[in-house]
Each structure stands twice: as structure tokens, then as C-alpha cells.
């Protein structure tokens, strides 16, 4: 299964943060949710997902804790930190601006 098609830089981080807004999730869950919400357009490979998660951890936007999954397996759950929430809000605004701008360029005659 391939990686996410060329995304704008930072988009994957944003998607991960967004997934975690409603509550803690494990890595597999994040990948699954991105795929489901994007109607199978965005398929995030492990070799992109886990490095991105590590980057977010390094920046202090996520916290990781071991917990138990629905089917009783040990899984690592990620939670948004306060800084992560703030960062996400700012990034969503920025992304909206960017999308609108791109859209304008594309629609221009």
C-alpha cells in the first residue's frame, strides 16, 4: 500500500493532530481514521506515520501512554497536549488560508 500522495508539507502533522482532537488514539487508529475520513483517498503508510508521530512528540504536542485496546491488546495511545491543541488551532487557520489561496489561483481565468 502506497504512501499519502504528495501532501503539502506539515499536512500530515495537522491530520494527526486533528484525529486526536476527540480523544486518545493509537497509531493504527489514526491511520485508519485518516483513511476512513478521506474516503480512502489518503492512505498513510507506517513509514510516514510513525516518524511524524515522533516529530510531534519531540515538539511536545503529543503525549504517549501505554493502554489496552478494544480487543484487549497493549497499545500506545497518543493524547493532544495543551501546546498541541494551540498549535493545531493555529495550523488549521493557516491551512484554511492556504487552501483558499490555492483555490483562488486555480479558479482564476
Amino acid at each position, binding site marked *: 500500500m502506497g*504512501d499519502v500522495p504528495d501532501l503539502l508539507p506539515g499536512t500530515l502533522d495537522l491530520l494527526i493532530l486533528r484525529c486526536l482532537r476527540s480523544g486518545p488514539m493509537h*497509531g493504527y487508529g489514526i491511520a485508519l481514521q485518516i483513511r476512513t475520513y478521506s474516503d480512502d483517498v489518503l492512505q498513510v503508510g507506517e513509514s510516514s506515520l510513525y516518524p511524524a508521530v515522533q516529530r510531534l512528540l*519531540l515538539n*511536545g504536542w503529543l503525549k504517549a501512554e501505554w493502554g489496552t485496546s478494544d480487543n484487549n491488546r*497493549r*497499545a500506545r495511545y497518543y493524547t493532544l497536549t495543551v501546546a498541541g491543541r494551540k498549535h493545531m488551532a493555529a495550523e488549521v487557520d493557516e491551512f484554511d488560508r492556504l487552501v483558499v489561496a490555492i483555490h483562488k489561483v486555480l479558479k482564476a481565468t
Partner: protein
Amino acid sequence: MRLLRRLRFLLARRREEADLAAELEFHRRMKIEELRDHGVGEPELGAAASRAMGNELLARERSRDMWVWPWLQDIALDVRFALRLLLKERRFALTAMVTLGLGIGVSNAAFSFINAALFRDLPFDQPDRLIAIRTDDVRGFNAGVSYLEFLEWQAQTTVFESMAASLSQSVNLSEDDRGAERLSGTYITHQGFAMLGVAPAIGRSFMADDDRDGAPPVVIFSHSLWQSRYGGDPGVLGRVVRVSGLPSTVIGVMPEGFNYPLVADLWAPMAMAPGIRNATWRSTGFDAVGRLRPGASLEQARSEIETVGARSLRDHPEINKDRRLLVMRVKDSQIGNGAAPLLWALFGGAVIVLLVACANVANLLLARAWSRSREIAVRVAIGAPRWRVVRQVLIECTLLGAGSTVLGAYFSYVAFQAMSNAFNIFEFGAPDRPRKPYWYDPSLDGFGLLFMAATFLFASLGAGLVPALHLSRADANDILKQGAAGQVPAASRRWAAALMAAQIAVASMLLCAGGLFMRNLLSLYFTDPIVATENRVAMRLTLPQNYASAADRLQFVRRLDERLTANTEFSSSTIGSDLPLQTLTALSRTVELQGEAPDPTRQPRTAVFIATGPRFFDVLELPVIRGRALGPEDALVGREGAVVNQRFAALFFGDDDPLGKRIRLTQPGPAPIPRPAWLTIVGITPTVPDFLPKRPDDAVVYAPLLGDPTPSRSLSVIVGSASKAAAVAALRHEVSALDGDLPIYAAQSLDEIMSMTRMGTRMIGSWFQALAVVAVLLACVGLYALTAHNIAQRRQEIGIRMALGARTGQVVWMFTRHTFVVLASGLALGLTAALATTRLLASFLQSVDPRDPLTFVVVPTLLALVALGSGAIAIGRATRVDPLITLRAD
């Protein structure tokens, strides 16, 4: 914050990686379940999940890269690789580290001296503003300044905030309830301590009132005297002690470690100095120091002092016209004449050894690089960037450098310990108690660490750069096309040979210097001291002020002589003013020849004067070449006689016969009335050598002590005794029976005096010899390695030659020829350079010509033999090669 998180990750790295692995495993299982839900059959499930997962390794690598800088990881990898390589080639690594370690060790040891002696600040307040004024006489010896001059400068210059003069003398310290001690005392003007910016640790400093004529005498002790004599008892303040007979009150103790102007046990105000009221323009020997006003420069001080000095010279014709006024920072005046260049020479020699070591290791690495060139070519061929290859080599060198620096620190410690006696001051008053000057602090400071770091960097880069560049330029294609080990490019072979020749040149230079010192020392040991030195002990005592008249002093001499001859502890005994072996420190007198009109325009001629007590010539076995030795009758009025040494005869009489001629000796200063009697020369003795670095022998006159109208208060007692301790105890007993306040000091056997006079030469010499041995050792290692690698490179060629019928001799000659060329060019270069530079050492060589032919023949021969020997070992091992094996090896 990020850095902190990064650090936490690095510390718990193993756990973090396990977490990630567990997480990915969880991911895989979920994937399997997902696929099973989609109806994938059990047998393919595992493979399908792995396919779906993509590159798990990549995920892990990239995740780790988030936390750890990739370049750091690369370097860690390189370091590990280099460590493995070096461990595998332990012999090579050890050779390289010992080689570099020796270089680093000697240069750091030498730097410690330079640092302690020349760079470190004086322990005073703002030492850069302290200026010393001194004078050098014709011979370049510091003669000090006169007190009257100092007063003139103090009154007439404007650049100094304050000035202080001091006069250092041996003093007797005595008390009713403690034994008398002979100590170093310094009389200092009252501003002295304030000018230096140092206050006593307890008690008070001198005040202007203490430094007046007739003020109640006071004294300040050094911390070490306070500790050794009074056990640090604060009750010492207010105590009354006798300083050279003068009852003085102790008012303070200086802080620990303080000393001034060089070494002193106690200080007293200048007003207490004996004879200070009668100081003349000719009585020099005072130290003068001033503290510059803020903003004033050394040049301003110099020009003001010179202006005032020129005026004094005009107004007071008795000032010695041949002397030179010197104005310099105190720091620069501490190291005696000629010592600073000597230290730099030692340092230069050490740096040269470091260079040799670097060249040597560079050569070893270069040789190794050839044998590794195939491995490296493969790495380059499969895409390793060149800078990675260079980095790999440099990392290897840095590791070698680090190991060498650890070894070098140890070597430097050992060398430093061995050499640190070089700074000992042997006071005339206490030769058995060597002391270091206060400004000499050999502890490792920031500067020393910096230098060590610099030598580490220099050694690592110096050894590694050439091989690294060489490798980076190698053409992978060429190397891979060639045989197993790769042919050595001619250019690098020339490089290696040139480095080797340079090493031999340096080794031969150092060896020449070392050889000259060795020859010099040997000839010093074989120089006949003229006088007998075995089982003879010399001790000194100085009669205090209350022995005012000549009659008092001579009365003491007569009574002491009686007691000495009666004492069975001494197999023989005599008394004199000084020893013939120590004319440098002996007193001089002005010489007049009878029948020669005095010439007022010339400086009066002087000669060393030694007053000899009864049996002086017998006890020292001082021979007489012509005429006779002095006897009791030569002390009688009207029959006064003298004996002169050959040097005196040559200097004052030339080819004339001095026997029967008459001379008159006068103490320096105003002419006494009545004038001393004329002495008739009755004998001539050989000139006793003083073993000091090249300076003209002293002209010496021996005359009877008992006939001397102005006998010296300082006396040497020479006794025949096998034990110094027993001699001192016996003499102390005899002297205290005559005068309880008189300490015995400077007890030394004559053999000890001889060995001390040779010590300077021995110290300098041993440093150069050690450097030379190290350099030769390094050159041998280098030559061996070079030859061995040369042979290893051409092993195949040797095999072919021998298979085709070449005899062993021809093969041996092939390599020996190369060694010869390298050796000969190195020696030629080195000897030429040595001939040009060893005359710089001339002032430290007493009895050897700096171009001594023997040294210049023996040194190259020795070096050539040793070098050829080490080459021969390498060649010998190569020719035992079986051609079949070498040909099949590839």
C-alpha cells in the same frame, strides 16, 4: 525544551526503540485482523500484512532520525568502526600513540616551564604596572642600583605612583630562648608592601615612622618562618627578637606564599639596614621597583629614569660609567640573564620533537593508507562520498590523538617532575635548603590546558591530514585495476621519503646538541679541581656588628682556630674568607702595583681576594707552582706576603716574573687611612676552575687573614671530616663556646659544592639528551616502518625477482639503497643546520667548542648505524619470503 526531550530520548534510547518495535508489532496485528475481516485466507495473512505494512525498518530508522541528528549517528558509527580497526591493528595503534605521546609529552613539559616562568602573572595587584630598574655591568650581571640613585629617582620622576627600594642580605635571627638561625632578610622602604598591594595576614605593615633614623626597630616575618619557628603562634606579635644583633619588635606576618623580591624570611624597614646612613653612589646592590601611574607607559618611565640617570652620572663621577641602566616590567626581570632564551630553546627543541612525531605517524598512516587503498576504493566505487572517507581517516587520527594526549599528559608529568629542580634557588646562606622563587607556580592552569588541547589538535590533524588528502585524491578506478594491495603512487613514496629525511635531519640536530652537552659535562668531570675535595666540609659564619674593629675579628679567628685544632672530631681545619672554588661570590679588592703610577681616567683594576688562615694551603692541598705557600711569617708587619694564581700573574704581569713584585689591595670605597701595606708576592698557584659557563677565570690573590687590616666579617671554616652532620655539630659546639648568638650556615662538603656548580650544565644537558634520545627513537621507528611498508608494497615484485633467480643480496641492496639515500640526505641537512645553530648554545658550554669535531663525527655515525640497523631488521624479515607464497597470495 526540545533539547531536553531529545536528551531524555537518548538516555532511554533502548526502551524507546523497544516501545516503537512493540507499537509496530501491534500495528501489524491489527492489520492482520483487518485483512482477515476482508476474507484473506489464513496461509497468506502474514505475508499480506507485511506487504501492507510497507518498509518497517524504514519506519523505525526514520522515527529514530527524528530524535537523533543523523550526522551524530554517522560519526558514532565512524568512531565505532575506527575503534574496531585500531583494536585490530593494536601494534600499529600503540606505536603511533607512543610516538605522538612522546611528542605531546615533551612539548607540554617544556610549555609548563615557559608558562610558569614567563607567562603567569605575578601574585601582586596589577603586576603589569610594576616596573623594575636595574643596572647591568660590563659582563651582563645585574649589579643593582645604589640607594642614593633610588632617592634621586623617587624625588625627580613623575611617572610612578610610588617607588620602593629593597636590599636583600643574610641576617642572623636570635632570641634568648631559641637557637640562632641564618636567614634571608630584606630591608625595604616603608612604601614597599603598599606598592605591591599586599598587606600582612596578621599585624600591621610598615609605616613612614618605622623607616626613620632612630625609629624603634621592627620586623615582619614570612608565613613560612612564622610556621617553622613559632608553629603559627599569633602571640609572636609584639615579641622582641634580635635581627643581626639589633633588638626588633615583630609587628606582622605576611600572607602565605608571599615573597619579595625573590626569597625572604623576614623584612625590616630600610632605616635598619646596616650602613644605610653612609650609603654612597658606589654602594649598589639595591633593588628598585616603581608602580606606574594609571595611563603612564613603560617608555615614559624609561625616558624619565634615563634623564635623571644621565644627570646623576654627570654630578657624581664615582658612578661606574660602564654600566647600563635597564627599565623593564618586573615580570620580565624575574628570569635571569640568558634564562629566557634558554627556556625558549628547550621549548623549541620540544616542539621539533612533536613535529617529528607527527611526521612519523603521518608516515605510518600513509603507509597504512596504501594497504587500505583497495578497501577505500571499493567504498568510493559503491558510492561513499569522498568527504566521508576523509572524515573516517580524520576520526581515526583524532582517536589516536586522544590516546596519545592521555599518554602525553603522563609523560609530561614525569618529565616535569624530573626537570623541576631547574628552578631551585640555592641561596648562598642556605645551600642545603633549595627554594623555588615565589612567582614560580608549576600547577596546571587554563593556559596549560589550552596548550595541551592545542597539541592534541595539532597532533591529530598534523598526522592525519596528509594521508586523508592523499586518500581522497586516489582514483578508485586505477586502484581497483591494480593488484591486491595496489601499487604505491610514486608521488606518495617521495612524500614519505622526504618526511623521513626531515626526521633524520631533526634527530641529528638534537643529537648534536645533546652530544655537545654530554662532552661538555664529561670534560667538566675530568677537569682537575686543583684543590682536594674529598672528606672536607665547608661551613660559614658571619660575625655581627659588635665585632667592629679588625682586632675584635682577628681575636675571634685566633680563639676559634685554637679550639678547632684542639678538637679531635676534625682531622684538619682552617679558616678563610672564601673558597678558591667559589670565586664568583668572593669579595674583590682594588689592586695597585708598586712602581706603577695610578691612572685616574681608568676604572681601577680588581682581583678576587681570599684571606687565608693558618694551614689553608695544607688543608685544601692547594699546590704552588713556583715560590712557596704562605706561612705564619707572611702575616708579620713589614714582611707581608701574598700568593697569586696564574691568571693574576698573566693579567697583571704578562711575561714578567711576578715573584718578588709588590702589590697593594684596597677595599672598594673611600681609601682607608693609613693605607694598607704593600704585599710581596712569594708564590704562584694554578688557577682553580669555577666550573661556571664560559667566563674568564678570576684573578685571585691569597694573603694571610691574620695580617689583613680590614678582615671580612664572613668566614669560611674548612675542616677534614667524613660526616657533614658531625662536622656541623662539632663546629656549632666550638662556636657557641665563643659566642652563643652566632649561627653556622651553608654547610656543604666540597664534593657537594663541585656537583652543584656543575648542576646547571647537567640540567640543560639532560634535557637536550632526553630530546635527542626521543628523536632518534622516533626516527628509528619511522625508518623501520617506511622500509617495512616499502617492502610489503613490492612483495610480489620480490617474489618474481627471486623466482627469476635474483639472489637475496640483490634484493637486499634494492631496499638498502633507498634507505641509504634517505639517511644520507637527512644527515647532510641535519648536520648543516646543526653547524649553523649550535653556536647559539655556546654560552652554556664551558669547555667544548660548539663545532666540536668529535661530536660532529660520532653523532652521524651513531645515528646512521642505528637507522640502518632498524632498516636492516625490516629488510631481513622481507627476504625470508618464499617466492611461491607471495606469488600465490593474490
